[in-house]
């Protein structure tokens, strides 16, 4: 609920007759400069003030582009061939400056870090009002109101870098509220935050709705947002495939379509419904691929990140590591790959002690796919990118060739083999990054947030792919916030405050109370 009246009196809407729509898109098509395919084709819809609309669909279907058309980044920042019309409260987006649209339409971007423009909470919130030239007194009052509304007044002097994902997101919301925009756009708000942050966000979303904001959410995790949305617009193949109202009694067809696409992945029945054990877990000591024995770790002069972690992961299984942001998941992965060495205890990988073996001798055993594919992609073609790892391992030319082709086929990128990895879409880049590690045939594969930006069919493919690896007696470790993915693994390791606080099959770990306990949701 609104706690302060200053926010309630939002910016004047432009007067142009009777306005029934907050946002209106008429026969809109857009093609990015130097791209062959259209990102949007003949899209039309209308959103009434106060409505909450979910825009969903498979990745690469034009969702983000559509959002950019609504806040004016297309055609002002991202240029290209633009046809049709998008309007905000009756004014043509193409005829307004983005800064002017900003007072009506606030945008919260997908990457919480990328949209932070200053270093502390207070100055970050004030950035928008300062740009508008609002007098300092009034500006401060607006900042106060916005901070209070999103409930982060107590964090006002904190550096932005120390905030959790959920807190950053609230800060981003506050940063748009100060400009008194009455329409809020969210780009994949759930993809970068842990499950605790996600439920925080959903609670917040419902208070935004009650306060009368028009809310447009682009999100692939339909199940979680669905209960709050009035309407679901399904974008597929760059155009609107369906546009339906949600009723409380029946799920919209778009949602069913999604469930179908995702296989059993998102079906209504409870979390335990789909989990099948794939044979008994083997526990013979020779099968242990990765072992942590009383491992502690701290960065030089930093606090202890891991305090006493003991763990044995078997070859031929799929383990998921979950936990809040900053609980030490990535540190665990780096210790496994030998990029970091424990300050106490012992880490062994395939029988090799990481402290006494060079990272070179370990890198053939452990493959590590980093979260952001851009941190790894460097070659001029996809094929060269995939050959990088096996070449570094000193393989012969024919071996490299064979393994690259196999990896390309595994991620279904055979057609793009000779393209530059930099012209591919985000989802394709993610797959290239995974393939570029698979090509080295590591016995242990670590995937850090592999499902970012993936939808139903891609997820299904990823799962099948992980299963083929485990069938070859490899160990797969995924670090993820995606509890839907976790459900299909063999084993879940929950990290909290640098310790393993739970470890077991997903059926047991993913009971609602337990997850709630870990994530404080």
């Amino acid at each position, binding site marked *: 609920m609104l706690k302060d009246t200053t926010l309630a009196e939002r910016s004047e809407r432009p007067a142009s007759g009777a306005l029934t729509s907050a946002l209106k898109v008429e026969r809109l098509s857009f093609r990015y400069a130097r791209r062959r395919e259209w990102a949007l084709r003949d899209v039309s819809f209308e959103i009434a003030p106060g409505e909450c609309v979910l825009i969903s669909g498979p990745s690469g279907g034009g969702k983000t582009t559509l959002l950019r058309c609504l*806040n*004016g*980044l297309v055609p*002002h*920042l991202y240029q290209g061939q633009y046809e049709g019309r998008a309007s905000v409260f009756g004014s043509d987006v193409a005829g307004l400056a*983005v*800064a*002017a*649209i*900003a007072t009506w*339409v606030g945008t919260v*971007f997908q990457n919480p870090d*990328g949209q*932070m423009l*200053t*270093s*502390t909470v*207070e*100055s970050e919130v*004030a*950035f*928008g*009002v*300062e*740009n508008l*030239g*609002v007098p*300092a007194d009034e*500006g*401060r009052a607006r*900042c106060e109101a916005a901070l209070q509304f999103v409930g982060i007044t107590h964090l006002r002097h904190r*550096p932005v870098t120390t905030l959790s994902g959920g807190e950053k997101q609230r800060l981003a919301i506050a*940063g*748009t509220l100060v*400009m008194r925009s009455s329409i809020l756009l969210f780009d994949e708000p759930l993809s970068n935050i842990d499950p605790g942050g996600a439920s925080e966000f959903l609670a917040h979303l419902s208070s935004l709705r009650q306060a009368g904001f028009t809310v447009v959410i682009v999100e692939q995790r339909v199940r979680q947002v669905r209960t709050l949305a009035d309407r679901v617009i399904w974008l597929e193949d760059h155009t609107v495939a369906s546009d339906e109202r949600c009723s409380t009694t029946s799920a919209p067809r778009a949602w069913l379509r999604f469930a179908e696409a995702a296989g059993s992945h998102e079906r209504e029945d409870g979390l335990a419904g789909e989990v099948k054990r794939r044979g008994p877990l083997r526990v013979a000591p020779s099968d242990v691929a990765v072992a942590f024995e009383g491992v502690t770790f701290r960065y030089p*002069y930093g606090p202890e990140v891991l305090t006493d972690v003991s763990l044995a992961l078997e070859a031929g299984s799929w383990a998921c590591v979950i936990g809040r942001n900053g609980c030490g998941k990535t540190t665990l992965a*780096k210790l496994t*790959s030998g*990029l970091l060495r424990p300050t106490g205890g012992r880490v062994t990988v395939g029988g090799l002690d990481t402290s006494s073996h060079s*990272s*070179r001798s370990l*890198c*053939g055993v*452990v*493959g*590590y796919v*980093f979260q*952001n594919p*851009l*941190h*790894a*992609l*460097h*070659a001029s073609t996809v094929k060269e990118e995939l050959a*990088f*790892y096996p070449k570094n391992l000193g393989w012969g030319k024919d071996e490299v060739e064979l393994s690259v082709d196999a990896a390309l086929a595994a991620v279904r990128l055979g057609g793009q083999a000779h393209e530059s990895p*930099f012209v591919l879409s985000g989802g394709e880049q993610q797959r290239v990054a995974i393939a*570029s*590690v698979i090509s*080295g045939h590591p016995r242990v594969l670590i995937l850090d947030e592999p499902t970012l930006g993936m939808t139903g069919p891609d997820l299904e493919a990823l799962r099948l792919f992980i299963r083929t690896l485990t069938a070859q007696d490899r160990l797969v470790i995924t670090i993820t916030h995606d509890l839907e993915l976790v459900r299909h693994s063999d084993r879940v390791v929950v990290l909290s405050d640098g310790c393993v606080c739970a470890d077991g099959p997903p059926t047991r770990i993913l009971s609602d109370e337990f997850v709630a306990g870990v994530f404080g949701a």
Partner: protein
Amino acid sequence: MQAGYLPRSSFIHRLNPLTKLVWLCVAGSVSFIVPNPRLLAVMLVIVAALAVMARVGHPWLVFMRAALLPALAITVINVLMSPYHGDRMLFASYSGDNRLLFHLAWGPLQLTVTAFGLQKGILLGLRWLSLVAPAGVFIYTTRPEDFAAALSRLRVPHSVAFAAGAALRLIPVLIEDIVTVVAAQRARGLQWDRRLISRARFLPVVIVPLIGCSIRRATDMAAAMETRAYGATAHRTSCYPPHFRVVDACAVGVSLVVLVAGILSRVGT
């Protein structure tokens, strides 16, 4: 290495960024004016004391350790490059006689180490250190946006001031990116050994992803700025401007006195 603002509670953190900017300029100029290695050492000690008072002593030491390598390079190069022309030198400040301490002639290559050359090398090395030392304290104690606001107060156009602030803010982000890229490539078997060939190979493997990340970051930032009304008006306001207090006036006063003293000491010699 920490390379950005460190929030701590200290009077130096609370000083107006303009004050700190004045101090930074004064300290920089004085380290160029002062011709005496001992005075430079004293200046370094004072800056170290300030760093400790600002509770950034440890990160400052790490910062200085990184600055030590260029300092050594400057010293060594100057020591080896000072030719011996008898006992006359340009600067009157070198003490004692100029003596030839070491001489090596190997074909056209002449290496000479002279007493004055040694003094000059040490002086220039120390000068570099005392030039960067205050910058470390400044970076650790000043919020980039306050720095930008301070520049705006000096009538610097806001776009320039914002860019300067953003550059300061992005240094630690860039360092983090480099660390991650190197880790990602090492995980795929990249070795950075001492052979020159593999170093040449190493560079594109790290720099290309770094450029990719930076372009993405720049685009994201531009989008975030535009949707938050950047450039909507020429009369940008500041909601939480840093205050200029009595302490600031005193600090600026002290800085100016030091500057004048430095100039006078030079004129005196």
